[in-house]
Structure formats: C-alpha cells, structure tokens
C-alpha cells in the first residue's frame, strides 16, 4: 500500500514537472528575453514617469525638448515622421546609431547611458511647416555601440577641421564614459532671420 502510494506521488510529480516544462518551453518559444525585458522596462519607466522622482538618468537636452515643444510629426510621410528611420526629418545631419532603435527615443537616451553635454548643433527643415529647426545631436554614452539603425547624413556638416561642425567625431565629452552607444536629435528652437 505504502509502495503504491509512493508510486502515485512520483507519477503526480512527474506530471506536474511535465506540465511546467511544457508551459515554460511554450512561453520561451512565443517570447524572447528581450521582449520580456522591454515590457518589464516599460512598466517600470511608466511607473517612474508619473512618480515625483526620476528612476533613470534625466538628461538636460531631453528636458529642453519638453520645455520647447517640438513641431508635430503627425501627417508626415511614414519614414520622414518615424524616429526609427534614418530619413526622419530631425536626422538630416546625424551620424551614429539612432537611440529610438536602442531603447531610447529621438530626444532621450536609453536607460543606463548618459547624454553628452557637449554636442554638435545644426538645423533641419521640418517638411510639415517648412521651418528650420535648431537640432542638437547628443551622443548617449556609457555602453558599447548599439549597432541598430545606423544612420549617416551630412546636411550642413563641415570638414573635420571645423571640429564643432563635424559628425564623424565621437561626442562623449564631459561624460563619465567615453564609450558611445547611440545618438539623439533634440529640438532646441526654431531658427528665424533677425
């Protein structure tokens, strides 16, 4: 009797093991670790966004972007209005990996990186309103190269002897790390003729 009961227990354990294993394998097939991290990160960031304290490093330029509202991208052609595309209007003079593809956005660095306070600045014309906007290209520093959404555009760029106007340089100056991860394009204002 006792032997039989032990056998039943073993069978039950094996069945539970099998169920858990099948479930875990099915979950692993349907999802990736990256998507889990992304969802988890979104929940954490979303929660922190409404809290009084910042969970992630808050970058100066990103603050500028919210203080000086950027023009609306609604109604633009899909690629010209999409920050994950190289053809996005703000990227007219960017050289690097787009932070919007690397866990950040067009104006905010991904978590775990620090926005360089030293930048290069140019202008890009918004295809919707035809105005020239002053854009700051800040590198996000502190992690290895993102390697997603490489983009090189050179509108208004000058040769390297104009260092402040050249985007071939790594712009991780004034940051704890010189390792560049990705680049953002922050709207600083709209350029007008005096």
């Amino acid at each position, binding site marked *: 009797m006792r032997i039989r009961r032990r056998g039943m227990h073993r069978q039950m354990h094996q069945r539970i093991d099998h169920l858990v294993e099948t479930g875990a394998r099915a979950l692993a097939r349907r999802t990736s670790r990256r998507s889990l991290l992304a969802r988890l990160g979104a929940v954490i960031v979303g929660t922190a966004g409404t809290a009084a304290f910042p969970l992630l490093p808050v970058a*100066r330029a990103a603050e*500028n972007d919210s*203080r*000086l*509202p*950027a*023009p*609306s991208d609604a109604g633009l052609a899909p690629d010209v209005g999409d920050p994950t595309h190289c053809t996005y209007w703000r990227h007219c003079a960017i050289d690097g990996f787009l932070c919007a593809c690397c866990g950040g956005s067009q104006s905010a660095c991904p978590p775990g990186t620090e926005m360089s*306070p*030293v*930048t*290069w*600045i*140019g*202008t890009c014309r918004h295809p919707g309103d035809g105005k020239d*906007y*002053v854009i*700051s290209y800040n590198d996000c520093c502190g992690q290895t190269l993102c390697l997603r959404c490489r983009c090189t555009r050179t509108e208004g760029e*000058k040769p390297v002897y*104009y260092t*402040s*106007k050249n985007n071939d340089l790594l712009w991780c*100056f*004034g940051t704890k790390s010189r390792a560049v991860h990705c680049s953002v394009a922050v*709207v*600083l*204002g*709209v*350029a*007008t*003729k*005096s």
Partner: protein
Amino acid sequence: MPAGALLLALAPGAASAVSGPELDYTLECAGCHRADGSGTPGSVPALRDSVARFLAVPEGRDYLARVPGAAQAPLDDAALAALLNWMLAHFDDAHVPAGFTPYTAREVGQLRARPLVDVEGTRKQLLERAAQATSR
C-alpha cells in the same frame, strides 16, 4: 528672460524662435559652451558669470576675438562682433566695465587675423592679470 520669449517658450506646439547673435551662438558655440553658457568643468570653460572678466585688461578684450572658437567660427566679422557683444551682455553683464565700447566688425577683423598660439597659457595669464586689476 523677456516676457515675450517666455510666452513663445510656453506656446504649445511651437519651439521658441532664435535669431541674430543668439542663433549664431546656438549654432556655433552652444554645442560646447551649452545654451546657458555654463560649459563643462575640466573640458569647456564657462561663459556665464565669467566671460566679461577678460575685459579688465586690454589684451583680454583682444583674446575674446582671437580665441580659436571665436576667430575660426564660420561667421563674418560683423556677425562675430555682434555675437561677442551679445554674449558679454547676456552671460556676464555684471563684469562688463563701465564705459565698455562694443566690438566693431573692423576691430574683430583685425583681431581674428592674428592667430593665438598658446591659448591656455594666454588665458591663464590674462585671468590672473584681470583679477589683479579688479582687486586694486
């Protein structure tokens, strides 16, 4: 900040307008010295509450137009003179000496034609002399 500028900055959907010397500063200088002139300690000198101290000695006035960032900026002499005058008033009005004569295009043109060889050494020496001149 003037009230008009504040209204522009707060207007939804409209980035604040930048023009004239302020636009030139934003495009040619702010990448390193930052929009508020605070610089980056150890990398880029601050302009805010500091830049007009150079005016306490005559060579300091020259220095501001000869320093590479100014002299080599892709701006004509008139635009560079206007930028320097705007920068002094905007970032460090308190240190601008009484009776200061604004830079002219002609003066700036002559100054930027003389390359500054030892930038850091000259800067250090000028700030020491300026400090002595103002403490007398």
